[in-house]
């Protein structure tokens, strides 16, 4: 019993941490830079499909069969998603803020269409199976297998987190926040706002691609149905609830919202008879939608708000309490 429980806990955390990576990517775009991406699912899908095509063994159903190592697949997925983000960003970032939202929304629709219809490349509606899973030689021992996979995810999340924390505190991160807060002032100081925004958008998109690749290798297949708009919505809810602008908030929000999501799914499968479950699942989305709007209205900072960072070399008050104390003195 306890073995099963640990196994389930590891599985739950592994999935939650793949969402945490997406959330960290979105945090670079939205939290740090204020770029609104409504096509998260599309960028995640690009990473997942590219990695799947690079690493799967030869198969007649779709392009690929390169059989490359998993790490190469992850890198390929990251780079591909970053390139696509760069192109979308280059098209819209110099225009009005919400044109980017509309363009990313469209990009996600087109990625979904390509996944469905470009059968020679993506395998069409059935997707691509037999994606190599890390430690697949241990598949006979479920506990060791799931714990090792969890370990890999923890390492990836920690790596992305540390890299982003360093970026946020670097001069580059300061310029991003300066542009977000007061673009005119940043421009007057000679910072090219469009260039910095574009870089942040591409980095964020690349991280989403990495998340998609990692997720695909953990579950072992990709299919168009995995990357529907509801995924975008979940990632947004995670970031807003956790606290946008805060990388720890992004990870916390991912685990928390995924926990609420799976718990409510379990509750629905217990409370509703099978014929009404599809209907009741719609209520799950209503609940998350209302929660998102409520957080925007009532607590826009989320659970962990943004940490004020000036430079690594200057000690700054970080919590609200400290800021209040600093103002008093």
């Amino acid at each position: 019993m306890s073995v099963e429980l640990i196994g389930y806990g590891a599985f739950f955390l592994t999935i939650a941490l793949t969402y945490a990576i997406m959330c960290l990517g979105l945090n670079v775009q939205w939290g740090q830079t204020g770029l609104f991406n409504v096509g998260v699912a599309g960028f995640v899908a690009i990473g997942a499909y590219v990695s799947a095509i690079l690493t799967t063994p030869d198969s007649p159903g779709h392009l690929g069969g390169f059989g490359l190592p998993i790490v190469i697949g992850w890198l390929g997925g990251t780079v591909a998603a970053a390139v696509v983000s760069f192109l979308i960003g280059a098209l819209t970032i110099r225009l009005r803020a919400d044109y980017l939202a509309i363009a990313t929304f469209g990009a996600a629709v087109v990625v979904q269409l390509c996944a469905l219809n470009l059968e020679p490349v993506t395998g069409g509606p059935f997707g691509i199976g037999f994606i190599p899973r890390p430690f697949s030689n241990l598949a006979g021992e479920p506990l060791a297998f799931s714990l090792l996979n969890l370990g890999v995810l923890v390492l990836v999340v920690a790596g992305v987190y540390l890299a982003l924390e360093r970026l946020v505190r670097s001069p580059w991160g300061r310029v991003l926040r300066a542009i977000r807060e007061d673009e005119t002032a940043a421009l007057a100081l000679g910072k090219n706002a469009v260039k910095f925004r574009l870089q942040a958008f591409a980095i964020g998109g690349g991280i989403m691609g990495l998340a998609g690749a990692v997720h695909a290798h953990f579950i072992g297949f990709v299919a168009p149905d995995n990357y529907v708009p509801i995924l975008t919505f979940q990632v947004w809810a995670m970031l807003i609830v956790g606290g946008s602008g805060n990388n720890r908030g992004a990870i916390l929000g991912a685990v928390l919202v995924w926990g609420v999501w799976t718990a409510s799914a379990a509750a629905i499968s217990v409370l509703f008879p099978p014929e009404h479950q599809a209907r009741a699942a719609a209520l799950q989305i209503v609940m998350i939608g209302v929660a998102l709007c409520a957080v925007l209205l009532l607590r826009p900072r989320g659970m962990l708000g943004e940490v004020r960072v000036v430079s690594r070399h200057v000690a700054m008050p970080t919590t609200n309490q400290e800021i209040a104390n600093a103002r008093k003195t």
Partner: protein
Amino acid sequence: MIAQALMDGLIAGAMIGLGAIGITLTYSILRFANFAHGELISWGAYLALALSGGLGYLSSNLTSSIGPFSFGWSLPLAAILAIMLTGVLALVSDALLFGRLRAKGGSVIIMVMASFGAALTLRSLLEFTFTTKPAYYTNALQIAMPLGGGMRATPDQLLALGLSAIMVVAIHLLLTRTAIGRSMRAVSENQQLSGIVGIDVRKVIRTVWLLGAGLACVAGIMAGLLVQIRPHMGHDLLLPLFAAAILGGIGSVPGAMLAGLIVGLSESLAVQFIGAEWRAAVAFVILVAVLLIHPKGLFGRVA
């Protein structure tokens, strides 16, 4: 075949145009891209479905077809009520969500995000109430009449085209010839300044919501009558709507209608020559082309 594709495109374009007028008005006056506009279309269609079903239950006379059309008097009556109720829905969402964010001085992008959350909530509520099974206003079959030149259209389709044309002219006259229209244009130019010169900005915002929701409801009822009613119908129209609003130029009513027709025609030609499975990509291609070549759109003032 091409003549028929043009006819189909024209009809689809008229529906896109009506929705795009609502988007372009809210965009230019409330100043944010409303991702929940598609849900007003779906809600309008379902409200009319429920009301017309209720009216038909009260009196079976109302369900017998009017003249050459496939529906009885219950549908036009229900449509009038549904337009009002969709307007109420838009006002309620403004009072609960968008208005409060506006009052807090939230940035544009927070409004966009809130509209995104509202869209999912509204759509899922429809899914919960009506399930995802497609619904229809009537089960009557209509024979398409030949119009000459190889074109065919059903009486319902011709009615939809005629109604769209009348509504576009009416909205255009409302904006250019009436006091409230002048106030709306003033608020879209500069909200603070128009407040200072005594324009009731809140009344203008209410009017914009009512107009946008009413047009969305009409577009939804037409789409439901000519195709089918599904909870996702509005969401699937959202990308064509945005493409049309931006192609037409934000704030321009004739631009939105013309661009809606262009998007509809391109979609139906793409179905003819490339394949129906790529239909949804057409709007994106148009959007990218406009943003690349001429971000102001056909009749827009600012990008």
